[in-house]
């Protein structure tokens, strides 16, 4: 064997030359050897030993520089009756060396095009899973040192590139046991890890990071993680765990009122929030007019809420994104879980198709309310809602995984000849591909469909129908450049179809409201980089173009909103494009091991708009419209400052301040007609909004007593030149003070107690300043818009959960939860009315006889003391 040394003595060089000359005499013989067939088996054998074996078996000699070739790396390889040159080629690819046969000598060199070699860097990558069921742990932390770490992406994947060497590596995720190990990283390696969950006593309420490294990454992306277990454990109305309603515990988020799934984030309107299930949008996430939301916690692996500086890969809404990732299904064992509440039955089954390779999940929830209503009303033919969620995933190999998931949910409330029904459908197909150990590619094909029907007469098929659907193809790349740099980039193409509500019947011809078609192309790039040991910079740019397409028609209005022209667009015609740039920037400073400061600014654009002048908490006949000839894109510019502190182990405090300026906000002409009005765009008014506030949160995440205390001071104001005489007014969701207390107390292994208390300032509304009569009707006169406030809202919910198993290791686990919603029976006002008279039986009604009775001021409210029982089980 000849060995190259960089600095050789002349004797050694002379020796080498001599041996080389001798070797040249054997060229022909060695070429024959390259084509001969050999059989070898190497089982975790050092490369140096492999070379010895090959030399012995083939008679070839090998030449290389041991300083540049890692001879200690282990190799597993098998060949049976293969040509020598083929064996050499295959082995060289395994050890990342190139080979060249020069005059009968096999010369080994490091691959010169390898970035690792150029920079002498190695990459450690892999996935982090829940050991119990194989679910990806999203946002888990990989730390190579106190200052060197990365977090897993939405698929549980991580990649970290460092110089070769020995590292103490730890893998951690809140609620799971930390796993640490010592790794000698001499070459790039794949290392997937399964973490075991901790005792339930240590589970967190709202997940945040526990060290400054985690906090820095989390806050730089403006996200808050909500654990599905937390949603399930929180005291809830009728015992129905509700992901959307659980958002009220997060400072800065305000629910509309009791009985509603509408929510408002940092002074934005309710259409400025998007809920996505596995990248597919859900446009109307509610059941029973809004009493419950559509998301079943049992089917959910992770919920991330972005309300601040969204990263550039997210967009399309001004105020928030709720990114729901469903479970992929247990790839280790079959498992079933479910429950029975007062109103619904739930069942989830999941399990491996091929262990560690593929799995499925199917989850359903079905209401049982028809029997209750049937007793009250004979005419009911259908009265139910349901949710169905499914997922299949296949790990094709180390580099490729595919996922298919769907959600289908709907409500049907039918009497004999009329009724309403609505449905949400969402589906996505995703392909994860590792281009190499540092570049992660996700390609998604996703779609969402929302339909709403009001059937006024089944006999002549008379119905009002609104529709919104989209289909998206997008590709997201993540380049894990180094532990201190991550680059995300990608593009997405989305097609939309809107039917803003049309009435059809065989009895007559109703006026047509134009359907709309639009497409959106988005390009984005996002760069997260650590500057020194203390600074983390996260910046990105999202570019979007919005294009409307025929066939459709649009009205042109003059300055008095009189229609002066109608523009007809044939199918395929493109018109009214909008191109917008959405820059995002956040800068985070790690003060020390316990304190983090952050500042950020972001611009968001929204091109689809909810058209509704309803003040009802219930979902009604809502229509969606795209940015087009008469509606310009909404935009928001948000500034944010934050401070985070770990006070003690498990006790943290954070405060975030924000200022948000919104343009092209939509409001309405007085008593606007938005239903079946082809000219409804002239009923819209456009203005601007401003919101600002400070959100405080104190959390205790460990111990028997866990919980959070949140306080928010925020304002939301709007200004429209044609509303309220151009004066600024408080938005409906301007509720300056908000307090949230959430607490869980684990009495022992079997009993858990829960408490939830919410307070907020009453919502603004317009109260009359005087009255006058017209045709005997007492007509209110309003002064400033939203000049009064409803009484303050507050509510206490309690729960007690009893684990029915004495043996916590049993495969069958079940529990019983007793909960009370609004424990002290507060009458939280929903509406105030001025037009009713009191009847003899003490109810309040609008007078039929205009000469009858005195009108009184009344309040309408929902849910006083509401108890419920829920039984849950889990078998695995």
């Amino acid at each position: 064997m000849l060995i190259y040394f960089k600095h050789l003595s002349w004797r050694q060089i002379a020796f080498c030359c001599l041996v080389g000359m001798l070797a040249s005499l054997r060229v022909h013989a060695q070429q024959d050897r390259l084509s001969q067939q050999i059989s070898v088996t190497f089982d975790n054998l050092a490369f140096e030993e492999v070379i010895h074996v090959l030399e012995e078996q083939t008679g070839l000699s090998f030449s290389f520089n041991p300083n540049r070739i890692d001879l200690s790396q282990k190799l597993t390889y098998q060949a049976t009756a293969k040509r020598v040159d083929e064996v050499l080629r295959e082995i060289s690819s395994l050890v990342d060396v190139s080979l060249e046969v020069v005059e009968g000598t096999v010369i080994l060199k490091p691959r010169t095009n390898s970035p690792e070699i150029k920079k002498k860097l190695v990459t450690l990558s892999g996935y982090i899973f829940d050991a119990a069921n194989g679910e990806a742990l999203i946002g888990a932390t990989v730390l190579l040192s106190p200052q060197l770490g990365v977090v897993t992406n939405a698929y549980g994947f991580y990649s970290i590139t460092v110089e070769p060497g020995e590292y103490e590596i730890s893998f951690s995720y809140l609620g799971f046991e930390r796993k640490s190990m010592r790794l000698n990283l001499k070459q790039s390696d794949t290392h997937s890890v399964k973490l075991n969950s901790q005792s339930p006593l240590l589970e967190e309420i709202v997940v945040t990071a526990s060290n400054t490294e985690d906090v820095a990454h989390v806050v730089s992306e403006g996200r808050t993680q909500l654990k599905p277990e937390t949603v399930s454990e929180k005291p809830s109305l009728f015992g129905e765990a509700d992901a959307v309603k659980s958002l009220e515990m997060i400072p800065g988020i305000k629910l509309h009122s009791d009985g509603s799934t509408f929510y408002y984030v940092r002074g934005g309107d309710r259409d400025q929030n998007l809920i996505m299930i596995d990248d597919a949008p859900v446009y109307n996430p509610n059941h029973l007019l809004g009493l419950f939301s559509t998301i079943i916690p049992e089917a959910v692996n992770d919920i991330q809420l972005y309300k601040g500086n969204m990263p550039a890969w997210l967009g399309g809404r001004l105020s928030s994104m709720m990114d729901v990732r469903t479970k992929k299904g247990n790839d280790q064992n079959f498992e079933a879980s479910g429950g029975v509440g007062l109103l619904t039955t739930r069942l989830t089954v999941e399990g491996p198709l091929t262990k560690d390779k593929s799995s499925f999940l199917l989850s359903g929830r079905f209401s049982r309310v028809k029997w209750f209503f049937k007793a009250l009303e004979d005419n009911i033919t259908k009265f139910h809602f349901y949710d169905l969620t499914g997922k299949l995933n296949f790990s094709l190999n180390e580099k490729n995984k595919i996922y298919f998931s769907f959600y289908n949910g709907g409500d049907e409330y039918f009497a004999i000849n009329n009724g309403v029904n609505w449905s949400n459908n969402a589906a996505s197909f995703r392909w994860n591909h590792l281009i190499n150990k540092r570049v992660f590619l996700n390609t998604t094909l996703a779609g969402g469909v929302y339909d709403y029907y009001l059937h006024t007469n089944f006999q002549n098929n008379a119905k009002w129908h609104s529709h919104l659907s989209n289909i998206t193809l997008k590709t997201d790349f993540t380049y894990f450049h180094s532990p201190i740099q991550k680059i995300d980039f990608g593009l997405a193409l989305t097609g939309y179809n809107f039917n803003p509500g049309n009435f059809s019947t065989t009895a007559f011809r109703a006026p047509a409201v134009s359907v709309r078609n639009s497409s959106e192309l988005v390009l984005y790039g996002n760069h997260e980089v650590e500057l020194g040991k203390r600074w983390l910079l996260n910046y990105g740019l999202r570019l979007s173009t919005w294009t409307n397409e025929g066939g459709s028609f649009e009205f042109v209005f003059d300055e008095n909103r009189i229609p002066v022209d109608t523009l007809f667009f044939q199918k395929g015609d493109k018109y009214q494009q909008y191109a917008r740039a959405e820059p995002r920037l956040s800068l985070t400073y790690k003060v020390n091991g316990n304190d983090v400061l952050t500042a950020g600014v972001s611009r968001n654009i929204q091109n689809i708009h909810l058209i509704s002048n309803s003040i009802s908490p219930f979902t009604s006949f809502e229509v969606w419209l795209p940015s087009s000839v008469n509606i310009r894109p909404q935009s928001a510019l948000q500034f944010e400052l934050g401070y985070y502190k770990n006070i003690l182990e498990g006790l943290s405090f954070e405060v975030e301040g924000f200022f948000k300026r919104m343009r092209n906000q939509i409001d309405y002409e007085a008593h606007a007609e938005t239903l079946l009005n082809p000219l409804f765009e002239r009923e819209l008014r456009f203005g601007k909004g401003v919101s600002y506030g400070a959100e405080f949160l104190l959390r205790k995440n460990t111990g028997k007593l866990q919980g959070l205390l949140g306080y928010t001071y925020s304002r939301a104001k709007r200004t429209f030149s044609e509303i309220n005489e151009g004066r600024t007014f408080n938005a409906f969701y301007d509720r300056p003070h908000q307090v949230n207390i959430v607490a869980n107390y684990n009495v022992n292994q079997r009993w858990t107690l829960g408490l939830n208390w919410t307070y907020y300032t009453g919502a603004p509304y317009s109260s009359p300043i005087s009255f006058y009569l017209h045709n005997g009707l007492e007509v209110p006169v309003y002064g400033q818009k939203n000049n009064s406030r409803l009484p303050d809202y507050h509510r206490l919910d309690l729960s007690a959960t009893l684990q029915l198993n004495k043996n916590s290791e049993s495969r069958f686990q079940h529990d019983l939860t007793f909960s009370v919603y609004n424990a002290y029976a507060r009458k939280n006002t929903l509406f105030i009315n001025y037009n009713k008279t009191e009847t003899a039986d003490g109810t309040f009604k609008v007078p039929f006889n205009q000469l009858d009775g005195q009108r009184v001021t009344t309040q309408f409210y929902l849910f006083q003391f509401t108890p419920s029982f829920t039984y849950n089980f889990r078998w695995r």
Partner: protein
Amino acid sequence: MAMKKLLKLFLLIVLLCCGCEDRIDQPLSSVETGSIVVEAHFTNENKNQLVKLTKPYLEQNGSVVPVSGATVVVVEGADTFYPLVETPAGSGEYFTSNMIAVFGRVYTLVIRHQGGEFVAQARSVPVEPLSPLTYENAGNDQYRLMLNESGSESNYIEYELSWADTPVCNPGTNCLGLVTYYDLKNVDVQDLFKPDKKDFLFPVGTRVIRRKYSVAPEYRDFLRSVLSETEWRGGIFDIQRANASGNVSGALGFFAVSSVQIDTTFIVDKP
């Protein structure tokens, strides 16, 4: 009726929410604005047409404060003037001499009061014939009006009921009723799901005088706004509150001109 059943469905859902309504002591932010209110409805009846001027009142069920001493004129077309006289003085009610507001003509109302001028224009549209009066036996010798849409154009029907001349009317009681049924041919969620009305029953022998008014498009918009703030409010799909925008510049209320159909019916016993 179909809509009523639909409404029941929704109400059932709200019932599930244990929805309740009761009185609340919520003080109004009353403000005296100095506005005047115009209530003027000219018709094709040959009579002294009325323009009523008042001030808004600050509390529910408040007393109407008349606006007296105004100069009120109605102009028919371009050159026929009808001056109105406040009768009696101080009542805020201003009458024309006998006149008929004719279909097809434009009427301009001009009011001058304390240095302010308030102007409105209106015209009427034809009225469709009245359909036969429908009512049902509610038991206990009591009857109930059945109100249905009629014709193809916006209209409203005023039902003036009196059983003062029947034996069941006790002395000292007010045996009168006034019901207005608005049929604006509109499609509003708030209207579809408006709150229930208090039941109104009357005995055999009740005299019902019906007046069906045509409603011009501008008047329809105003009535729709008024109903949105009155009869339709308090349901489960209310919309944003706002002032009903009338057609009198600088004042509240409306000046309308309608064509009218009138009939009288006596309620007779029926199963």
